[in-house]
């Protein structure tokens, strides 16, 4: 019987960032050289309301250990109301995921403005630490996708 060497777990985190606030906030974190874990990968969307719950399910299905969605602060949406829709959708989705066994801590919504580079880096650091503690997500992973 072969014993596989146990590798240290590094979580995979997908971050959806709206183009106007959070993506710019992430850029600012970069310009200010604010370090956060490399396992956070950002996907740019025009607005947080563009994030389809299916994208988040897909990420979990394909092996993401945590998904975070960042948008403009409520009231500051570039498209006036987009983040309100996003907030409602994510609240519903996350409670449903929690019910299905994807812990609430694995999903998060955070409002980060274009000026909040520090907040962006701190949020990502904190989220990555939380997921690290939670360990691997196996619940939704599609077995057919595994090698």
């Amino acid at each position: 019987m072969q014993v596989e060497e146990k590798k240290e777990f590094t979580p995979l985190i997908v971050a959806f960032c709206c183009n106007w606030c959070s993506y710019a906030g992430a850029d600012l974190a970069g310009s200010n050289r604010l370090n956060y874990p490399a396992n956070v990968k950002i996907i740019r969307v025009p607005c947080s309301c563009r994030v389809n719950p299916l994208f988040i399910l897909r990420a979990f299905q394909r092996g993401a250990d945590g998904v975070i969605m960042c948008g403009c602060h409520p009231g500051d949406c570039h498209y006036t109301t987009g983040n309100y829709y996003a907030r409602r959708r994510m609240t519903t989705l996350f409670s449903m995921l929690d019910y299905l066994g994807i812990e609430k801590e694995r999903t998060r919504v955070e409002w980060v403005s274009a000026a909040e580079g520090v907040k962006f880096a701190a949020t990502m650091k904190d989220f990555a630490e939380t997921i690290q503690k939670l360990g691997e997500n196996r619940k939704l992973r599609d077995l057919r996708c595994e090698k």
Partner: protein
Amino acid sequence: MQRIGVFVCWCGTNIAATVDVAKVAETLKSEPGVVFATDYQYMCSASGQEIIKNAIKEHNLTGVVICSCSPRMHEATFRKTVQAAGINPYMLEIANIREQCSWIHKDKEEATEKAIILGRAAIAKVHLNAPLTSMESPVVKRALVIGGGIAGIQTALDIADAGFEVDIVEKQPTIGGKMAQLDKTFPTLDCAACILTPKMVDAGSNDKVNLYTYCEVDKVEGFVGNFKVTIKQKPRYVDATKCTGCGECTTKCPSRKNPNEFNMGFDNRGAVYIPFAQAVPKVATIDPDDCIYMKTGKCGLCAKVCTAGAINYEQKEEFITKEYGAIVVATGYNQIKPTEFEEYGYNNYKDVVTSLEFERLMNAAGPTGGHLLRPSNGKEPKKIVFVQCVGSRGQSCRDKSYCSKICCMYTAKHAMLVKDHYPDVDVTVFYIDVRTPGKNFDEFYRRAVEEFGVHYIKGMVGKVEEEDGVLKVQASDLLANAQIHMDADMVVLAAAIEPDKSARPLATMLTASMDTNDFFTEAHAKLRPVESPTAGIFLSGTCQGPKDIPETVSQASACAAKVIGLLAKDHLLCNPCVAHSNETLCNGCSTCANVCPYGAITYEDRLVMDKGVRETRRIAVVNEAVCQGCGACTVTCPSGAMDLKGFANRQIMAEVDAICR
């Protein structure tokens, strides 16, 4: 299958120091569809762009992935590059490996691996990109300037100079703003009124400039080139077209106990008033809260003395709707009332004033005719203490975290003017740092110290208390490491400046972003300082950050140049990343139209061919000129008929898959 080229930028050492660029290019070469991959020192340079163009032609590329800085930085540059080489500008994707990779990670292996994954995601997306063409929309050749201070006036005059119509909306009865209240201006000691009022007159008489004073912006619709703005004209209760500005009513008005805002409440005005002698337009305004006739129905004296018959107590607010190609925000600042800073005694002692109040006390047109007198007893002060950084550069919740920028210089000015008019008055300034970066600024400050003998003490004031009509100032001298107890007749607080209160609701109307201090955010801190990230919205003056007059005027003119550049175009290219509905999937349920913030979705009966059946169905149709591409409809659509071009479901899914691979 696409033929994709991958270009990895070193950005000098910005990327190359932490990311193994050669390895990234080499690894991405083996991705499906990639036929060419290379790395180069500066992809955005002329020679870098040449490499991209040559590769497109040589390898017949259909899609391009550039691994470089943020797309917010150079997406537009590279779109032009690929277009010049003959492929659609939207067949380009950028992997952000600088701001979101090399700059934040120190471990080279980790950063290289992340750069490869980000590159993969971009390649996966480009595979699903489709050529997009921008629609054209016409530009309304008229600009709106919100705020009629020096910033708004300068921007408006410069735009008018280029031959475009411009409207100024000002909420006060006159234009002029804060600068009209100032006495002298640093570093030349020009009289503020002497340099401002001619500009006010210019704005009032220029036939390209329309003034909407005592007005507010009520509603903003539309987008760059085609804004539709509703302006609310507040009732003046005076017919502005008839009023000659003679001032007869203002002297006869029996309601006299209303604090005069222009003089910071140091004297009173009538219920009907003209803010100051050089007001533009010089038209009286009745304050309905102070007017005896409006409150009791008895009086009407102003109507009796007005020979022009301009008084109209029945005036109602009016709404004016106009179209604009560009909107300039010039809402300016206010000085905070230091009521929360109880240690300085501003709430309790009349002789503790803010610097803007002091400005009125020094002004020849002010309540004391330019004679500096103590507000408490009307006597000349012998000792004056200035306190800097009141509410600026602090960490507590009552403080602003930023430097208000103008206080060091105007305090030096005040100190100098006091010493100039009253050489025997003792002037002391308490400071944390003296910041004088500006042309002739440090020379000015040194004159205050060396020539006029103003005492500068590094340290903060801890307490101000009044005893027998004398202010007892307790402070620390940080350089001498000593506690100081000092008597003063007046204490002047350099209170922080903050954006005008109207800025926040206005930003919401304009969908322009603000920072946590309510200053408007610029599109790029260095390269696009006078534009908001929202297309067609421009920033002028202190609404963007603390500024002195020279800086405000330069920014105002820069802002005008940008507006002129926009208005000079006949057509604008719209963002082609808009929603579209798949007519075979759409069932016309109206869910999408309900969430659209722009009203871009309408319904039409269309002949649809579905599964071999031809039938007429009600389907959603997106007006591409109105759609701004937020994507709210795409997620809300229950049948999955709505999708967003450039950020399609399949594209984002492909990115997710590539990242999670």
